[in-house]
């Protein structure tokens, strides 16, 4: 594709998004442009309602912008259909949510293997991969526990292992420490830093200044725009 380089994992230009409630239209994103290079660790910071979660959803192909262009790994997704976006979510993106979002009736390893159900070519070594992913987050001794039997920090580490199972280029984390105490939050941040050092691209959304400070670069969002961009 002309004008794109796959050195950039994310290349977004002029993204707008507004939510309509009855006759009232609330603009959330008002022309966001940003570029995130491979193996970068970027934090998006802002007060609640500034549009940072909406931006993350668009970057994660969970939502579509009203206008603007978006290239993920050099591939244009602004017009992609649902199946193509689903496939990209499965293969190229790992999500980590504030609420962990684990299936509470499924064991840790089953939760980690969930994305494999939707992989086009399911790897034959799925179980081994899940075990490796759990080992990477220090939970190999908890493989067959249900989420209810794990602490909050452990649950979030299971969610991170799940995000890693398909070996994605990009990890999107939305307030991943928001539901954790300080110690567990710090542990989770350590894992992100380790993943970053191992070469993964990480985009972290947070309202926490200290947390954002641990990234390579911080994008400060205000009223649907990127107000300040710069190295931390």
């Amino acid at each position, binding site marked *: 594709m002309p004008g794109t380089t796959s050195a950039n994992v994310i290349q977004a230009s002029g993204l707008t998004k507004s939510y309509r409630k009855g006759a009232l239209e609330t603009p959330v994103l008002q022309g966001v442009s940003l570029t995130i290079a491979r193996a970068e660790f970027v934090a998006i910071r802002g007060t609640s309602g500034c549009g940072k979660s909406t931006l993350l*959803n668009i970057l994660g192909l*969970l*939502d579509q912008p009203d206008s603007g262009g978006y290239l993920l790994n050099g591939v244009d997704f602004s017009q992609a259909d649902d199946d193509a976006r*689903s496939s990209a979510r499965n293969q190229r993106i790992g999500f980590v949510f504030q609420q962990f979002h684990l299936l509470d009736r499924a064991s840790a390893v089953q939760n980690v293997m969930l994305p494999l*159900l*939707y992989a086009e070519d399911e790897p034959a070594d799925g179980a081994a991969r899940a075990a490796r992913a759990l080992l990477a987050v220090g939970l190999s001794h908890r493989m067959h526990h249900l989420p209810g039997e794990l602490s909050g920090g452990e649950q979030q580490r299971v969610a991170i292992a799940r995000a890693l199972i398909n070996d994605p280029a990009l990890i999107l984390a939305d307030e991943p420490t928001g539901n954790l105490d300080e110690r567990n939050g710090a542990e989770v941040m350590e894992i992100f830093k380790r993943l970053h050092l191992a070469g993964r691209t990480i985009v972290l959304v947070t309202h926490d200044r200290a947390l954002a400070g641990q990234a390579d670069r911080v994008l400060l969002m205000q009223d649907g725009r990127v107000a300040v961009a710069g190295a931390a």
Partner: protein
Amino acid sequence: MTPFAARSRKLWRSARLSLQLLAAHRLRTALSVTGLLVGVAAVMVMVAIGRGAEQRVVERVRAMGTDLLIVTAAPAPRIAGRQRQVATTTLMRPADARAIADESAFAIAAAPAVHRSLVARSDGRNTTVAVTGTTPEGLRIRNVHAATGRLYDEGEDRERRRVAVLGPVLARTLFGATDPVGREIRIGTTPFEVIGVARVRGVDAGGADLDNAIAIPLETALRRVLNVPYIDAIYVQARSSAHLEALERDVRARLHERHRVRPGTPEPLVVQNQAVILRTERSATRAFNQLIVGVAALALVVGGIGILAVMLMSVRERTREIGLRRALGATRGDIRRQFLLESTMLAAAGGAAGVAVGLAASLAASLAGRWELVFPWRAAAAGVACSTVLGIGVGAIPAARAARQEPIAALRAE
């Protein structure tokens, strides 16, 4: 790994995970399939009982012979205002039976018979019974066999011996538990020696108890009991049941000719065709089967509504799970298939459980009612198959609703 193996492994894992999630609401899941279970079980019991009843009817008719015609005189036409009319005009003689046996190509045997309702006595006990006078050939055609003692023979018939074969019910009425063979009874005022008790035959298609009856030699009946020259009926055995209709036409034609029945006069004969009776009984069971199909359809509808309600509830409750799966890469099709799979598993399980419960209940009923259980394999297979199809059918709506969920809206739901 071949694509098929990979896909079926994925399907299996998806099914197992779904079952784990459904198990979270064990009571609700169980309740959802209860309607279907009860419906299918009820249908299984009905089918089993219906089959058992049909089998008994067929056996009963077979016991009397499916290759049998019974020719009797038609009731006389009643004339208004005339009193004391005789119920039947009788025109047949024993020679008519012989002629049919000798001349009709479709008959292999024929026997004359008389029937009367008479009082039978023994040692102060008395009862009114159906007395049949017929030849030993007649006993054979009607499938009468001795359970104890023996039947009379040609010589006894020719010599007009006063010997009687009792039906088992009558034997019990007159003699209780003691063996009646060799004892004396009176039929009307004529003394008879009991020489045998017949095997149980049951009730005929008209509802008459064949076991509350006496058989005596034809000649004895005609000359010593009734004092009449004519007979009431001719039993005709066909070469095979396939020849029954031709035989019936042939017998009518011969009797019309022998008795000079003019064309245009009312038909003087009634011919009872066992095959026709069997057909009638069969059509009655067919009507019953149609009823069962109706009940089955109703059971499926009710069961389907139960599963539909639970699946819709399940979709609403698992909105976050749907959002999560979409975020992790599930397409709308994946979500639709998952919920279809779940409703199909529920319905198939409900149907299979219904079949099991229904069979157990049928078995219990057959043991209690002492009839033979006809295992309804086809109904069992149909029960499971229809339930499975039903699951796919009613799963379509909740599956479509689940697939419509937008991932972010679903993830945000509480």
